[in-house]
């Protein structure tokens, strides 16, 4: 009784008015992040590595850019964080490998998730494989795996929005070709073949520009995708259409 009141009074000198509380929260996060290892500084966000309550974690902080109007800043950062959290849950519920979310701080737009320890990006894997094996055929197994994962994702009507080989991780042991998808800030839900087609187009452009002489690998990926996905036909058709639409391409007669 007495203990409770005393304790309640001590625990917080009554949470301060909102603006102060928000500023304090942001300062706390800033302080916390400064003690972590910065692993990536993107245009969008900074990604840190550290521990969260005993588990290996990654923290993605969508920071205010400074050149954007503050209202836009807040809204965009928040929206992308929300989209990412939602997409990660959707993936996991559908049995698609994506990092487990530990905590989402909407005050600072920080997403705390598990670290896939020992992982390698598909991008790095392809580059090192091409350096040692030198043949694209050695990547056909990987292409098959990626095709299967993306097919499952699209069958769940989840559009990634930023498919690149840097946004796919291989979980150790690497030979098992266990793919983990990451970076869902631009994701959204859609059943439209057009959206899925564009998703694949983004991947195609990123893939072919990052990994020269791998056209056959992408073909193998598309083959695997169409075998795995139940709704592949219209999607691939759209992909064709989008390809014709691309930059420096004329759709005129």
């Amino acid at each position, binding site marked *: 009784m007495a*203990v409770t009141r005393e304790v309640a009074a*001590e625990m917080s000198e009554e949470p301060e008015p*909102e603006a102060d509380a928000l500023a304090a929260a942001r300062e706390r996060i800033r302080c916390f992040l400064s003690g972590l290892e910065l692993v990536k500084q993107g245009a969008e966000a900074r990604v840190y590595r550290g521990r969260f*309550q005993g588990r290996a974690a990654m923290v993605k902080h969508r920071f205010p850019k400074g050149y954007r109007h503050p209202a836009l800043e807040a809204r965009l950062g928040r929206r992308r964080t929300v989209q990412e959290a939602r997409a990660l849950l959707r993936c996991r519920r559908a049995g698609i490998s994506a990092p487990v979310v530990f*905590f989402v701080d909407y*005050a600072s737009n920080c997403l705390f998730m598990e670290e896939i320890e020992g992982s390698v990006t598909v991008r790095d894997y392809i580059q090192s494989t091409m350096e040692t094996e030198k043949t694209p055929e050695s990547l056909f197994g990987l292409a098959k795996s990626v095709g299967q994962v993306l097919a499952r994702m699209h069958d769940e009507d989840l559009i990634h929005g930023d498919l690149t080989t840097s946004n796919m991780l291989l979980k150790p042991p690497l030979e098992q070709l266990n793919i983990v998808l990451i970076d869902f800030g631009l994701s959204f839900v859609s059943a439209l073949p057009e959206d899925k087609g564009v998703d694949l187009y983004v991947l195609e452009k990123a893939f072919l520009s990052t990994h020269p002489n791998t056209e056959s690998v992408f073909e193998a990926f598309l083959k695997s995708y169409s075998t795995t996905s139940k709704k592949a036909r219209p999607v691939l058709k759209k992909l064709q259409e989008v390809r014709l639409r691309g930059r420096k391409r004329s759709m005129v007669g």
Partner: protein
Amino acid sequence: MAATAERARSGRGVLGSRRGGRPKILLTYEMQSTHQLDLFPGCRVTLLLFKDVKNSGDLRKKAMEGSIDGSLINPTVIIDPFQILVATNKAVHLYKLGKMKTRTLPTEIIFNLSPNNNISEALKKFGISANDTSILIVYIEDGKKQIDQVDLISQVEGHPVSLKSLPEITNITEVKKIYKLSSQEENIGTLLDGVICRMSTKDVL
């Protein structure tokens, strides 16, 4: 009282005072599990697990009146202390922002364990009920504020046990049911992974 409390904190065995017929309580260091919250320096969370509890109904009433300074949780749906820490971290975060969904920090912790946003359902499923024979008490100490653990423990008519016994108490079937875990998820992660994911992202559903 202060002396015994001091001994409790130092981790040596403590004998609770005899109170009109109630048995002595022996608590050793492994039985409590205290963790620091990484995001809130100075904030410590302690978990206490009890078996063979006879006065759950009484305790529940006291909790509802606000006379127990901690969350009384149903341990049969808890798989790992990490689950509690995730719920607590979020609760403290929202508390400090003045944005909790429930009225008190103890109930907020219980609410955060739930995979959905229905408060009364959460308190029912994750809080304790009158016929529960095991309970998990979670309390927070922030900065100078300290909880009288001996007093807290003496209110429970049951045996404090180590958190290591939690797996014996957990009802995995019930956990899978409450969190609606699918078989596809079992292929990509542990039960705990599925639970944590739902707890942390339920506000964007």
